[in-house]
């Protein structure tokens, strides 16, 4: 009996150690970390493609106020309430961050003090970004106005409040590989579109359904999902449902009007405002990719 108990205790200890290792935050290897200095002018494009302002600027901010990244509105989900933090270059934001800190946050979802971020911050998509784009984006964020104030952290429900559990989740769902296998002869714009959509644009975070564990269901990539904030539906944007031409998709992203002149609505209004800041070439690339993804009904 004693031996059995001892064995059990040993097993539990072994399990705890294994669990500790498996769930530990994984920083980027030194050789892979983005190298500075980035180019702020180029970073502006990545900023708009990445939609940073939609969550980190104040709700309803317009014009230059979208560059004040003091932390935006709480994102209310079934897992809990997520509060986007201050990412302005001030003391309450990223003032003391190194580029390596920023890169680990963006591509590994790890904070400077070595904790997991919740994937409401879409590092599962940002993981597909190039180190050069990360460096440019960091330079651009550093050029924006400092904003004072740290918004209070959001409240998570059990068991999601145990951050260490995210380590396990990441082992399943954090994967920097491209999702859609494009043909070898895919054009440069098509590949650029894949990068923008699957990487910085993080379109799939809302437009793909999720598994019961909260990971993106890649079998139904971009095939539409329930609104994560609980109301309505985010549309299927694969060719199985979206019948618009590539030019019409690009035009929608530029103007906010569908081919039959319905207007953009809901949370896509912010996204479209970001997409409108991109070049025609970038919007055409996004459209080319959306025409090329597997059609899902």
């Amino acid at each position: 009996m004693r031996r059995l108990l001892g064995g059990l205790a040993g097993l539990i200890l072994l399990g705890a150690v294994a669990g500790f290792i498996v769930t530990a935050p994984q920083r980027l290897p030194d050789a892979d970390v983005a190298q500075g200095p980035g180019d702020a002018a180029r970073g502006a494009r990545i900023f708009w493609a990445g939609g940073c302002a939609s969550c980190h600027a104040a709700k309803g901010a317009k014009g230059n106020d979208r560059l004040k990244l003091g932390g935006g509105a709480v994102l209310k989900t079934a897992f809990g309430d997520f509060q986007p933090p201050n990412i302005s270059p001030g003391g309450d934001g990223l003032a003391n961050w190194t580029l390596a800190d920023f890169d680990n946050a963006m591509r590994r979802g790890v904070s400077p003090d070595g904790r997991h971020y919740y994937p409401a911050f879409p590092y599962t998509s940002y993981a597909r970004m190039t180190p050069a784009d990360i460096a440019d984006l960091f330079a651009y964020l550093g050029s924006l106005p400092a904003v004072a104030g740290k918004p209070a952290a959001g409240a998570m429900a059990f068991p999601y409040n145990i951050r260490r559990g995210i380590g396990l989740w990441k082992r399943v769902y954090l994967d920097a590989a491209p999702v859609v296998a494009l043909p070898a002869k895919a054009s440069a714009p098509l590949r650029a579109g894949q990068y923008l959509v699957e990487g910085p644009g993080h379109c799939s975070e809302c437009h793909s359904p999720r598994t019961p564990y909260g990971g993106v269901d890649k079998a139904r990539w971009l095939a539409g999902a329930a609104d994560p904030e609980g109301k309505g539906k985010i549309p299927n944007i694969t060719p199985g449902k979206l019948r618009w031409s590539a030019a019409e998709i690009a035009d929608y992203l530029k103007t906010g009007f569908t081919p039959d002149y319905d207007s953009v609505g809901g949370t896509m209004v912010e996204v479209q405002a970001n997409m409108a800041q991109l070049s025609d070439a970038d919007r055409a690339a996004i459209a080319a990719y959306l025409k090329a993804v597997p059609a899902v009904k």
Partner: protein
Amino acid sequence: MRMLAAVLATAIILPAIAPAVAFAGPLEDRQAIMKGNGRDTKLGGDMLKGVTPFDAAVANKILANYVAAAKAFPGRFPAGSNGGDTEASPAIWSKPAEWRAATTKFQTDTIAAAATKVSTQPEFGKAFGMVTANCKSCHEGFRIKKD
């Protein structure tokens, strides 16, 4: 040919404002008003894109239609009309002050746009933009897409 285009355009526009004075029920009414807005906006957008030739009379008719629509619209959301096959967000009834502000802005902007009495395409572009900026800002918080 231009004459014909104008006649055709008017023929399309007229039914578009008709719903504002029809009384089928608040849900049907407001959907018809929005359908009319969509038709008018396509007509205007096509003229601005150069898909169809610019016609000042049609342009001013579109702007007048927007005024009528903006006036008729807020009254089509009485208490209790939030059920059925609607994309109207519950926020319309739960945030009455914000809803009033949005619909009032729509009215103010449409009246100001129509008052410019446009005669050129760039003028129409400006007036049209003034009105249609309301589409997004209102649909952002007050419409929920169902499909």
